[in-house]
């Protein structure tokens, strides 16, 4: 945009404008690594002279860092709960949900346990991996299983969705509930199976610019980019549902 410079000049305090306008720091959930890296390049292209730096990690870790005073401009979390710890500490303005992620059943390509719907997971002979309830995909899985009225005994409650997916990829479990995005990124190594109850267990990804942001103007522009159609396209291409 041609009006970028003007916005920046008018919005930021004169003292820090020069320095802060050239660097943007984004803290984002690790599951956003690919999409945000791409959006970051887009952003840099649109704003010459601006360098976007990402800090990808677990949402909870990022939230800890932000509440301990990390110099971040934007926070994109993988769950509303972690975003809440940041807003509770009045570190961020009202967050916006920018995408949603839906669960799928992931099975190894040869599908050894012949799983094709959610209730197959309740079979005690089927080894199932779920995320732990403390992490978003685990909470979503519980919601989905409750909605289906199923009682599943998993062999493991994984720390995050990638770990869950790894178990499927290596054939250690016969099935797992993971995000659609993850199935997509592991193209070929796992097979995804949609199931209707997934719609009842959708995980929201909130984004917010932070109140102590060193570059508040750029932060706002980055959030706008993510929320824009251009941003949505990138995210949907990776398997996310538009918010």
């Amino acid at each position, binding site marked *: 945009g041609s009006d970028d410079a003007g916005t920046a000049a008018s919005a930021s305090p004169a003292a820090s404008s020069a320095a802060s306008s050239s660097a943007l720091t984004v803290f984002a959930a690790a599951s956003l690594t690919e999409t945000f890296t791409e959006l970051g390049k887009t952003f840099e292209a649109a704003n010459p002279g601006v360098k976007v730096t990402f800090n990808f990690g677990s949402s909870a870790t990022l939230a800890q860092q932000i509440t301990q005073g990390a110099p971040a401009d934007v926070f994109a979390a993988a769950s509303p709960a972690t975003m809440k710890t940041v807003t509770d500490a009045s570190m961020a303005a009202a967050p916006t949900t920018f995408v949603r992620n839906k669960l799928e059943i992931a099975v190894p390509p040869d599908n050894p346990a012949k799983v094709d719907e959610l209730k197959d997971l309740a079979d005690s002979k089927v080894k199932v991996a779920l995320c*732990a309830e403390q992490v978003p995909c685990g909470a979503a899985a519980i919601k989905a299983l409750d909605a289906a009225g199923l009682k599943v005994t998993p062999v*493991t409650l994984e*720390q995050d969705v990638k770990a869950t997916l790894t178990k499927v990829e290596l054939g250690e479990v016969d099935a797992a509930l993971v995000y659609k995005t993850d199935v997509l990124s592991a193209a070929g190594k796992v097979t995804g199976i949609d199931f209707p109850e997934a719609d009842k267990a959708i995980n929201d990804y909130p984004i917010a610019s932070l109140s102590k942001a060193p570059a508040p103007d750029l932060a706002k522009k980055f959030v706008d980019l993510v929320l824009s159609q251009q941003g949505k396209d990138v995210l949907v291409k990776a398997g996310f549902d538009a918010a």
Partner: protein
Amino acid sequence: MVLAVAGMTFLVLPLAGLLVRAPWSTMPERLAEPQVLEALRLSLVTATIATAVCLVLGVPLAWLLARVPFPGRRLVRALVTIPLVLPPVVGGVALLLVLGRRGLVGQWLESTFGFSLPFTTAGVVVAEAFVAMPFLVISVEGALRAADLRYEEAAATLGASRWIVFRRVTMPLIAPGIVAGAVLCWARALGEFGATITFAGNFPGRTQTMPLAVYLALETEPDAAIVLSLLLLVVSVAILAGLRDRWVTSA
């Protein structure tokens, strides 16, 4: 002296941070949860068994490295440090590749004995032992190299076979080194997270050790995570303070 105190402060100060931050008021009820004690018990049991496994396999390995010249010894010695350098999660993946249901050895284990390590308590022990063994091996090798070979010679002239020399002379002489190694090993096993969760998964009562419980608590309730960590610390510090000194005086 100043440096020593600085070093101590550096190690201990973060604990102070945790203590300041800890939610003392809700502490008792949080600790009373059965899952917490279950995880603590599991941690202590698996770390101890893993240490025993490391002693049984690691001390002879250290001896081999320190005493028996063989081609490629340098390489083997460096390879021993692999589990140290490997990020634990990758270590877990590597273990799965070998010992998992479809792993190189695991496949055979399953078809022959119908036995599969991942998602079992035994799997936790394997993961912990894998990650912690280098500490033992390297400490013990260092102690072996520092030991005076002439005592072993004296024992040989008295008719002791290599094994007896090792057991009755070398081992007691390097006891402090073995203790140091075992303590490192035990503590590392106790704090082990990445390889355990990757290889053995996380299931309360079976494979959920304290660090796993802490990690998951951190996701939602950082305060609870601090409480759990402090519990783990207090228990391990108490055990080490008790155990270590008894050893030191007897050595």
